[in-house]
């Protein structure tokens, strides 16, 4: 059935189909155009843009969006709803346990990354080995993590005089948060060229075919969840650097926007196509619109409506692009 459809589209590639195929190849083109347009608008409206501060405020969303991407790329409804609570959980662990133990310095980076990866690993293991839908596993994990964060401390925990607090002010004019954002981007650029990267796309595209070709589908999928968890661990530093406290009440802050960013970034939610760069640009677009709304003094009560609308438009556009030439069911 798929074969005949492909044949059909080849016979008569309409302008719409050609455009769709182009967008599919350069999946982040839409997000890039949107991002640049919004950036120019922002710079025109806001004369004093304050780069260092803006990047620091943007970093948590950027990392949450990138952390959500690998699980979605792995396909079959893979999605990680526990990214936002995981970031909060990691920041709680950092503020309540690592700092008093004297591990608040640089050793905390690998520890927190490992913690994030471990939670992601559990998500992956439950999803793959017990064959429970990822949505349910990560939703359950979402509540477990949010509960644990509140268990660690019911109120905010300060981080005192710590290097994390200096990320947002920047090091000699260079935004420190940019480093946090660039680490996963560079890691991804390397990873997507390795065997694991190719296998991840193969599994996301068609897991049955990947399995038949000898790809270890299960381990690839588990690794995708663990990778997302590690990026979320990194995100906890971005979170801490902005507010300077670990806040257990903020567990759900980025859930909706992170997924909207991924969808807006051109990663298809069916898996197998997309990447971290698109999610970063998608998150950037959302952040710039937020910034614009604040400058234009749009009342806060419109924000929820706006977030929902963006997410809806993003998934619909994504679905229209990735639809394979068929017209009706």
């Amino acid at each position: 059935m798929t074969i005949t459809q492909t044949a059909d589209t080849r016979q008569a590639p309409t302008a719409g189909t050609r455009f769709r195929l182009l967008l599919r190849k350069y999946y982040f083109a839409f997000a890039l155009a949107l991002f640049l347009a919004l950036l120019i608008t922002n710079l025109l409206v806001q004369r004093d843009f304050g780069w260092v501060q803006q990047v620091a405020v943007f970093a948590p969303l950027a990392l949450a969006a990138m952390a959500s991407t690998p699980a979605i790329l792995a396909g079959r409804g893979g999605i990680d709803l526990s990214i936002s609570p995981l970031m909060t959980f990691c920041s709680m662990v950092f503020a309540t346990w690592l700092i008093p133990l004297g591990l608040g310095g640089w050793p905390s980076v690998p520890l927190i990354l490992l913690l994030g990866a471990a939670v992601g690993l559990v998500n992956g293991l439950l999803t793959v080995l017990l064959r429970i839908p990822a949505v349910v596993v990560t939703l359950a994990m979402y509540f477990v993590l949010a509960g644990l964060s509140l268990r660690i401390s019911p109120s905010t925990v300060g981080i005192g005089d710590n290097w994390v607090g200096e990320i947002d002010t920047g090091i000699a004019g260079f935004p420190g948060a940019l480093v946090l954002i660039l680490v996963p981007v560079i890691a991804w650029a390397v990873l997507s060229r390795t065997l694991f990267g190719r296998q991840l796309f193969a599994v996301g595209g068609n897991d049955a075919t990947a399995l038949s070709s000898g790809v270890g589908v299960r381990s690839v999928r588990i690794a995708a969840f663990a990778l997302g968890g590690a990026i979320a661990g990194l995100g906890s530093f971005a979170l801490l650097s902005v507010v300077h406290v670990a806040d257990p009440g903020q567990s759900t802050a980025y859930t909706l926007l992170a997924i909207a960013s991924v969808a807006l970034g051109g990663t298809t939610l069916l898996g197998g196509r997309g990447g971290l760069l698109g999610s970063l640009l998608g998150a950037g677009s959302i952040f710039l619109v937020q910034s614009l709304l604040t400058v234009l003094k749009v009342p806060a009560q419109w924000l929820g409506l706006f977030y929902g609308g963006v997410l809806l438009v993003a998934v619909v556009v994504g679905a229209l692009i990735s639809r394979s030439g068929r017209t009706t069911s």
Partner: protein
Amino acid sequence: MTELRTATPGSGPASDPAGGPRTGAPASGDSRGGGARARSLWETLAATQARFPVAQVALLFVTFAVGAIAIEGFGSYNSVRNMLVLASLVGLTAVGQTLVVLVGGLDLSVSGFIVAGALTVTQLAEMYGWNFGTALLVAIVGAGLLGAFTGWLCNRLNIQPLIVTLAMSAIAVGVVQVQTGGAQSGSAPAWLSQLSAPVATTFGIPMPPVVFLWLAVGVLMWLFLSRTRTGRQIYATGTNPRAADLALIRTRRIWTGVFAFSAISAVLAGVILAGFAGSVDGSLGGPYLFQSLAAVIVGGTVFGGPGDYWRTMIGAILLVFLGTVILGLGFTIPDRQVMYGAIILLAMAAYGREKKLSSRI
């Protein structure tokens, strides 16, 4: 891929070796040797469990017994009545979720529509001077349209309902918030509070009306799912959408209808919750989103069926009993949240497991 045999039983007492009657059907056929062999005790138990949630009912009694022994006053009439009221609130928020799960979807907009519905009949009604009936009608029509759009969109463009409902939840609350100007405060009329106040009586019976309402909804849902054509079509759509399409079931209409129904039932549940809570704010719906989903899954309804609303009712009572016992034993609300997460995973591990990848090649 290493284990080519069927799913190994042993993921807890509620484990069903067939992995649920639907999902595991082809795999279990191999190991049972075509039914020529006498059924083992385990298989008999599993077959019974598939027909009736024996494990859940057993757990229900065990939980109650533990509570009655360990916590003073747990077994008293007042305590049981209060728990039934809580269970009926959870159960009423899970009506739509049950149907959505039966067609293979997931509705995360329950919390949003609860808040939107509750705010519409309290704050908006006050603002615009609507009477209760008008406000309710506005809420129902609005929710129905948004829900129908969700279902249609998911089916038409093959998008995961998870994401669309997440967006719709924010939109539903947003639409109301924009009108109230951000402040979320509504107070419910007194008669609405009487519906679910634990001390309220129904025609002289010392049990609040909401419990009887829940029972009536349960009977109606049972009749609807098992006795009407649309009910059977919902099962068919969930089990195999393609086969249902070929059997001339209009699956897109079923999806549209089910999501519209879910939104409307969430709005109605929100109205009742407004009465129960007395005042309304944005955090009204949050706890019920997860509890409604937990009740559906713990009751034994699986994505794409099989399942039933009365299973959800048992799940809701079980959840409330467990939650009360946990709190009664000195644990905190965050602990209970962790427990809910764990219990969903346990139930899904026992029931809702997907087919092996190797069996799809």
